[in-house]
């Protein structure tokens, strides 16, 4: 990549780590057998994907037969939600999720609502983005069949009390799914300790390849297949396996688990430094999300009087790659539903900046980021009619 690039959008995606790429490499050109084939080249691939499955299961505290490979985190979410809701619809057609889920979850629920006649309850969150377990308790009805609550939010990094929430669902006999796409690789996730029934992950969020994900399905969970066809994935998810992809996912997850503590410390330091300096040097700033219950590498600020896309473009010109919940970055015209859900006004939501640190970021980069931000925010405020108005009135 261009020399000058500082990548600060690890929640959007990560590069594939060199070790992960090395693990994948021979499976493209050398060991290319179809895992369904009975000859040696096929058996070798089969063995490799089963080892990958075992590795992933081990990291997550699951049994290998509970891990199913998918083509993305989105597919895992779709399958988990549609698959269980439809399989249990005779029991009831009420399902529960939250207002701050990723689109992969929200749109799957929209599908159930609009196409399949389900009723969906959306749990609210507080100003830090936390779900109140009491709200879940109250929302569960006799005809509720599924609860889906994300582990860590992709925009503001807030971490939900999944174990507590899952226990409530367990008590009432309701299936519990968690979209842990953002959590995996950042914090230790153990499905048995959490006591969840379904859990989604996506390799490209933890230094694995794009286009491969997985769904943990607790043994005994009743669900329909989503992609029908061949007998792969024990007849539950058809299609020739992405052999290098699943091997890469397993390698990446192992690396992540082996280095979790160091990685967390590293990210935590960068985040703290960044937060402190910004609050010290840039006025009219709002820190979004929970200060404690958050992903270590996620910082989400709103800069008042400034619009996010402009901010991103100017940062980009300085080599800084970051993200915003501004409407303009998404193609829609509403700012992030997550930022609105935690009570931000449209104006403030439009001025949000999400920085998500990764393993290679340094303190120097944080300092450069703060300097650059200070400059750009000032420049943008100077041309902002909202700022002009604000200054006149104060």
């Amino acid at each position, binding site marked *: 990549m261009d020399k000058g690039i500082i990548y600060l959008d690890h929640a959007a995606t990560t590069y594939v780590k060199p070790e992960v790429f090395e693990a994948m490499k021979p499976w493209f050109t050398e060991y290319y057998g179809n895992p369904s084939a009975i000859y040696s080249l096929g058996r070798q691939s089969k063995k490799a994907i089963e080892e990958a499955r075992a590795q992933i299961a081990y990291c997550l505290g699951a049994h290998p037969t509970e891990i199913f490979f998918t083509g993305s985190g989105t597919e895992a979410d779709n399958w988990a939600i549609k698959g269980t809701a439809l399989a249990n619809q005779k029991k009831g057609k009420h399902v529960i999720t939250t207002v701050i889920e990723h689109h992969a979850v929200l749109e799957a629920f929209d599908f159930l609502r609009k196409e399949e006649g389900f009723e969906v309850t959306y749990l609210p969150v507080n100003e830090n983005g936390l779900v109140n377990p009491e709200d879940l308790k109250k929302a569960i009805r006799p005809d509720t069949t599924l609860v889906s609550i994300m582990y860590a939010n992709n925009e503001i990094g807030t971490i939900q009390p999944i174990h507590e929430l899952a226990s409530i669902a367990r008590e009432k006999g309701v299936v519990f799914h968690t979209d842990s796409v953002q959590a995996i690789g950042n914090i230790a996730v153990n499905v048995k300790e959490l006591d969840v029934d379904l859990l989604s992950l996506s390799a490209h969020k933890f230094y694995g390849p794009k286009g491969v994900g997985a769904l943990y399905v607790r043994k005994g969970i009743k669900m329909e297949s989503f992609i029908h066809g061949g007998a792969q994935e024990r007849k539950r998810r058809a299609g020739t396996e992405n052999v290098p992809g699943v091997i890469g996912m397993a390698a990446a997850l192992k690396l992540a688990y082996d280095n979790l503590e160091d990685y967390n410390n590293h990210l935590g330091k960068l985040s703290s430094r960044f937060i402190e300096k910004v609050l010290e040097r840039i006025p009219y700033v709002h820190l979004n999300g929970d200060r404690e219950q958050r992903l270590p590498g996620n910082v989400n600020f709103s800069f008042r*009087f400034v619009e*996010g896309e*402009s901010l991103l473009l100017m940062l980009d010109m300085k080599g800084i790659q970051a993200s915003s919940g501004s*409407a303009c970055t998404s193609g829609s*015209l*509403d*700012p992030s539903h997550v930022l609105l859900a935690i009570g931000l006004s449209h104006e403030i939501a439009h001025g949000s900046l999400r920085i998500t640190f990764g393993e290679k970021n340094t303190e120097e980069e944080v300092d450069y980021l703060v300097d650059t931000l200070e400059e750009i925010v000032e420049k943008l405020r100077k041309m902002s009619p909202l700022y*002009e108005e604000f200054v006149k009135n104060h």
Partner: protein
Amino acid sequence: MYSEKVMDHFTNPRNVGEIENADGIGQVGNAKCGDIMKVYLKIENDIIVDVKFKTFGCGAAVATSSMATELIKGKTLDEASKITNKAVTEALGGLPPVKMHCSVLAEEAVIAAIDDYKKKMGMDVPDTRCSGCCGKCGDTRTE
């Protein structure tokens, strides 16, 4: 995403600022939509001798603001009134489809500023002109 010309106008926007004792001021859009543009006009003998703007908005909003002000500078009020979002976008070498509504904002802000001047001068101003999003947000949300 954006053309070079758009990026140029975004990075070095022309005519940013305020005009003290401006003869006409127009502001359209609102923070809800994520785009606000404010235009200041200095007018002598029906000619726009100076123009400044402030914009809260995305790259396209800033670039169209810059281009629109360039286009009307030195023009008569009549000429300036005929500014269209199409002309602004074309002058910028095009915009991504999802950003087309931004060019409308610039058109509207200029017109609003001219109307403001005309009102101050006691001239007739058609009531039908809108200011704000004019429903454009909703229009493009279905993209």
